[in-house]
């Protein structure tokens, strides 16, 4: 029997996809898991893979066309099988014969043969995504919650479209993968984060400040850091490394920020409306300018990586970000972000927080300037950084203490070893 290939939700927020290029031609044999086409989502170019074995019988969508998630783009079937007409676009959830496909198609009246029990009035039919009943195994629900995955966007491969573990992990080759395995790595310590219920004072602060300054009540802390020793250390390291690698000032900043966050867990947190999630691991988002916007690839466990690892990973991620080749799990799940406009010779700026994170560090350019040291005017390399804080999570003194630690680490790089 022929299987319809549908446009899948390949990123957490994808609503439509542009078919960039067919990887299989009509008549080609296809196997489950093989790439059928490249699809441009709202974030990146992703692969659309086959969910059935057989022959590609028909391409319904032309290269370059944009279709909504759930639309049928091709048909796979037995060689020679006849495809009579273009199948109607299917819902994103694969319809299993055993289960109702979606709320909208569920019969509203009780079938005549059913017992005449009182039936609650059906809720008004809303857009499918808003009301769709998510069927998921308890394990899948737990994993999705831990990883911040919206189950409504995941295609379930179990009975009746049930989302099961493999749909979240890509375990086993033959399965739907909306959010692949490495979305958030398992924490080394075993527990990824700690949820703390909101205290009354926290609730009041949240309410009052949000009313004053918009949904995320920002405030800003700026400090100027003497980069003389960090810059010297960097120069010495690069000389020693030779052609083995190159450390940038930003790499040192990322490492120091991550280590300071370990010491100030209160700033490594997500605002979750009814509680605050304090992350035990540090995953730094690094803002990268791309041709038509901005994306923040994530360096996982930044605090546990060496400068060389951070340097290599940052460069590699930024490169692919500019090519729009990042996978969703590579730009989601950060616990704090860093934005650096130093290369544009910006002295100082304020970053806008990327919710649900509670803070972002905006880094200006490092420049030589006259400063007073021990009563003498000397020329030192200095850098200004501004931390934007979500006041619902971070108070002024909390943010200041974090910045102070960060400043100490940069001004005396050996402090990173403390």
């Amino acid at each position: 029997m022929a299987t319809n290939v549908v446009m899948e939700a390949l990123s957490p927020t994808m609503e439509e996809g542009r078919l960039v290029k067919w990887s299989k031609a009509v008549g080609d044999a296809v196997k489950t898991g093989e790439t059928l086409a490249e699809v441009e989502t709202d974030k990146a170019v992703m692969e659309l893979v086959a969910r059935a074995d057989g022959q590609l019988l028909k391409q319904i969508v032309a290269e370059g066309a944009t279709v909504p998630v759930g639309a049928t783009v091709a048909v796979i079937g037995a060689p020679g099988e006849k495809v009579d007409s273009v199948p109607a676009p299917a819902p994103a959830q694969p319809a299993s014969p055993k289960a109702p496909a979606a709320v909208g198609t569920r019969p509203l009246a009780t079938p005549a043969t059913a017992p005449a029990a009182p039936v609650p009035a059906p809720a008004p039919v809303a857009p499918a995504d808003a009301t769709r009943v998510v069927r998921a195994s308890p394990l899948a629900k737990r994993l999705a919650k831990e990883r911040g995955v919206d189950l409504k966007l995941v295609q379930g491969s179990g009975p009746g479209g049930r989302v099961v573990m493999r749909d979240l992990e890509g375990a086993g080759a033959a399965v739907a993968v909306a959010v692949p395995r490495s979305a958030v790595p398992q924490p080394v310590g075993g527990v990824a984060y700690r949820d703390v219920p909101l205290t009354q004072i926290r609730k009041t602060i949240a309410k009052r400040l949000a009313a004053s300054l918009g949904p995320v009540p920002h405030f800003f802390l700026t400090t100027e850091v003497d980069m003389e020793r960090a810059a010297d250390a960097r120069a010495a390291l690069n000389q020693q490394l030779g052609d083995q690698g190159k450390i940038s000032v930003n790499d040192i900043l990322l490492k120091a920020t991550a280590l300071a966050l370990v010491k100030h867990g209160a700033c490594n947190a997500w605002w979750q409306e009814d509680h605050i999630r304090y992350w035990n691991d540090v995953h730094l988002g690094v803002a990268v300018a791309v041709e038509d916007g901005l994306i923040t690839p994530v360096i996982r466990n930044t605090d546990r990586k060496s400068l060389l690892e951070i340097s290599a990973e940052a460069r590699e991620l930024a490169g692919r970000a500019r090519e729009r080749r990042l996978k969703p799990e590579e730009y989601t799940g950060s616990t704090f972000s860093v934005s650096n406009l130093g290369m544009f010779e910006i002295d100082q700026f304020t970053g806008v927080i990327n919710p649900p994170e509670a803070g972002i560090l905006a880094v200006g350019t490092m420049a030589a300037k006259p400063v007073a040291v021990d009563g003498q005017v000397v020329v030192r390399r200095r850098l200004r950084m501004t931390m934007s804080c979500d006041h619902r999570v971070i108070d002024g003194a909390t943010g200041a203490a974090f910045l102070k630690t960060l400043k100490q680490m940069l001004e005396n790089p050996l402090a990173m070893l403390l």
Partner: protein
Amino acid sequence: MPTITYRDALNQALREEMQRDPNVLLMGEEVGLYQGAYKVSRGLLEEFGAKRIVDTPIAELGFAGIGVGAAMGGLRPVVEFMTWNFAVLALDQIVNAAAKMLYMSGGQIPMPIVFRGPNGAALQLSSQHSQAWESWLSHIPGLKVVAPATPYDAKGLLKSAIRDNNPVIVLEGEMLYNNKGEVPEGEILIPIGQAEVKRDGSHVTIICHSKTVSIALKAADQLASQDIAAEVLDLRTLRPLDDAAILGSVAKTNRAVIVEEGWPQCGIGAQVVDLIQREAFDQLDAPVLRVTQADVPMPYNKQLERLAKPSPEKVVAAARRVLYLD
């Protein structure tokens, strides 16, 4: 390490415990002169004499009651039933006397007694002689229930049962008595209440006991050829259940299949499912499935009997379903 049969492992356990403690005695139908219907008591009458190896009339309720009285008097009787199908006649003594004695005497009268014999189906013994009684017996507070699958476990668990100061039910199997396995000579004591992983795996846990352990291991072999790593967890003790072992394995594999000889309703598997859904709900990626005897009296007809019993193929099918492969 010597390789011996399950029946000889039980024989070693009885002999060692009788040598160790003069209060231990064995009683039952044909245990003495005939040396046991299944030759578990071979050589014991000769070694320990008729006072400690006691042939009884065919009167299960009566000799079970004598055993309970002997235990009240300070002895440590081992009561052998020719099969657990016949022990139904003695359930009043097991359930109303032995299981309640310590409780109803306010802790004054311990009940160090073992009731043992073959349980479950053999081959073509028909409906009345092919029954698995573990869920009946495990239901009763005051009893401990063990169901060893291997000669090693049989020896270690029977010795622990004899030394226990509570009534312990030992479920053996006609189809197990000839099974061979490595058993060290001398002391082995397996604590009651400890399950054992008989085979490591990460994709699905097959929970089993007694005869179904070999079914589970065969199923695991077949699954391995399909690149599925099944973990085989042998419960060994059915009361008290080893909750930690069950939950630990399910936490690892996120899915379970339970296989038992008994009927589905109120079976051992039902109890294990209750534990898993209650304590490991967030670990589960699929509903737990059970493989049991068909819900009918055991047919005499050979083909029907085969179809009614659990089999490796049925376990493989269930494992593939909880892995969403079929």
